[in-house]
């Protein structure tokens, strides 16, 4: 089983994200052969002009969506940590949608079962949103690499401020 620290998911850098929604189009085109944000596994939120960020599945440890499903339709892959849906078991009740803190679980408008980011596991070149993001705001990360990034950026900022004061 993949360890939590190595589990990969897609993360958006709010500093870099400009809110262009290209990730939504790349996802819906790749998954559904149509340009339609409501069929995208990643969604952009612009809270105001200064706050833009795309959100998708975080592949949580002890995922609430899996725990919430009353029909055992959801499970977490031991190999990748991906959330896996058994379409035959899902009746679209939406408890997983309610349980997810990130709004990553969505009900498909046509199939009426839930869908979620699977990191484009069938694509040799990986997640399509990451590939298409023109700002390089999206990256495939692990919690370890995210923490490293945050650490480095906060220290850089600290020393930059120090230099500016001198």
């Amino acid at each position: 089983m993949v360890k939590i620290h190595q589990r990969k998911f897609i993360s958006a850098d709010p500093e870099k994200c400009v809110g262009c929604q290209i990730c939504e189009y790349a996802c819906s085109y790749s998954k559904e052969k149509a340009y339609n944000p409501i069929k995208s596994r990643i969604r952009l939120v612009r809270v105001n002009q200064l706050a833009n960020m795309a959100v998708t599945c975080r592949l949580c440890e002890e995922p609430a969506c899996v725990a919430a499903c009353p029909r055992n339709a959801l499970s977490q892959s031991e190999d990748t940590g991906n959330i896996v849906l058994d379409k035959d078991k899902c009746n679209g009740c939406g408890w997983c949608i309610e349980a997810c803190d990130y709004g990553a679980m969505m009900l498909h408008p046509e199939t009426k079962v839930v869908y979620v980011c699977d990191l484009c596991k069938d694509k040799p070149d990986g997640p399509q949103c990451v590939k298409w993001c023109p700002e390089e705001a999206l990256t495939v990360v692990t919690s370890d690499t995210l923490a490293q990034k945050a650490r480095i950026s906060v220290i850089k900022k600290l020393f930059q401020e120090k230099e500016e004061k001198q």
Partner: protein
Amino acid sequence: MLGYAGTVLYVDLTTGKTRTEKLTEETAKKYVGGIGLGMKLWLSNSKAGVNPLSPENPLVLALGPVSGTMFPTGGNGHAFISKSPATGGVGEAVSHGTFGAELKRAGYDAIVLTGKAEKPVYLWIDDESIQLLDASNICGKSPPETEDAIKDELGDYYVRVASIGLAGEKQSKIANIINEKTRAAGRTGLGAVMGSKNLKAIAVRGTRDITVAKPDVFMDMVREFHERMKGPAVQKYRTLGTVDNISVTNELMCMPTRNYSASHFEKTENINAEVLNERYVAKIIACNSCAMRCEHEALVREGPYKGSLARMEYDNLWALGPNVGVDKLDAIIRAAELCNYYGLDATSTGVAISFLMDCHEKGLLSHDQLENIDPHFGNGEAVVQLVEKIGKREGIGELLADGVKVAAEKIGKNAAELAQHIKGLEVTGYDLRCLKTAALAAAVSFRGADHNRSGAFALDLRGKVDRLKAERGRGKLVKENEDIFALIDSFIICKNARNTLYNELGDLAKLYSAVTGAEVTPQDLSVAGERINTLAKLINTREGLTRNDDTLPWKVMNQPISDDGPVKGSVVTQDELDLMLDDYYQARGWAVEGIPSKEKLKELGLQEFQNIVEA
């Protein structure tokens, strides 16, 4: 044919009745979309001489063939078309964001709005469900507030909204229509048309799939244009933004300053793009589908205007800065934010204020009229106060709220000489006295004073022609540029992205075919561009505009540039203008009076409107 939804929605606001009509392939191909399709729908649904602010004047909202796809900028635009209350001719303004893409997903290519609602309403388009909902509790709100209130009421964050502010509600002829808080269909006063219909907002949610005819070709084009958008063609927009033009026009001595009193601003170093970006730009954001992302959000972090946030571009910075002699960026940003708050075209608002300042300086106004505002050039706080007054149509704002042409008529005396407008639409930030190709383009522009009908100013600025000379040949150049721009506004590709169209017509033809599956040649599109410009001229002719309206502001023709340097003494004389007008009409195949010939109409497939030129 893919690309188009194939449906035009008609909404009668008087009766609340709606109906749909099929958009035929023939009409779609002929008029492309956007302003082309919008003008065709307007002309076919209106009567000659219609009062722009009457229920009988249709307001058309139109999309392009690539709207809703992920083609950068082309996917996200929309256009409003109507008879302009400012000019009495064709009014059109395009905007980008996400609104247009959402409307295409709802299943429409265009909406024709007629009539007038009994009380304020907003139009709620939820795919095929169309409702007029009560807007009485959102009246008076700004477009950003309206958007939030409607999303709240409908309980859906992904609803997209285009709305008017108080200025539109009060039918100010410089009012605009704003979508997604900062994006405006700005020019020609179409906010007033919407207000005259008691229509506060249009809210839309579309859930249908958009597909294209040749996905592989299309996706390769998207990838290619993403690369072009990261390259040198649009580097200016990505980095410093359009505001960078402040330094360019200033150095070339073609930046109208203090209401055309000078052609350069001596304090430009206080307000240029470097200062704006370093001290004020808090974030650069993108419209839907765009890899260029050029929208610079400027935030005031301290001082009396602390907290003000506005999208800054060359146009609003010029209009509320050098044009009114102001070199304080915090006041300029606050004034720009207020223009958005009230739903005012920032260009026209700035020119209305510079006009007032000029009148004040020349002693044309009484002390009582000014209500303790001190409108001298350079007073940023006065500019902020005046935007508020105009937005509310209060006191001196009432005088200015319908633009400079109307204001000059009210003031009388020689105020008209200070009113910088063409056909009733205020000028933009390019001194036409020393940009003679741009001067011709502005004179013939069907929507009035504007640089965005042809972009011919770029020929002058880049030295492709001698900008101080009026000569034959400029007519053809303006015509060619107008045809491209009409097409761009019919595809609804963003003007800031035009430089990514390396092969202009070739790129557009390839895009059209990839999306719709219909094969068109660059030549077909060139003819379509000419057709759309001629159609606009037909509208203006039907509404009574003549060669006399293809003219320039008084100062451009009578007050030579006084700044020292290579442009000193520049002015456009009537002889020069006549020479260029004749040349332009000839290039267009129009008669000397600027009326399209029957042969030209036949050639362009516009015979159905032949009665207009026979009248």
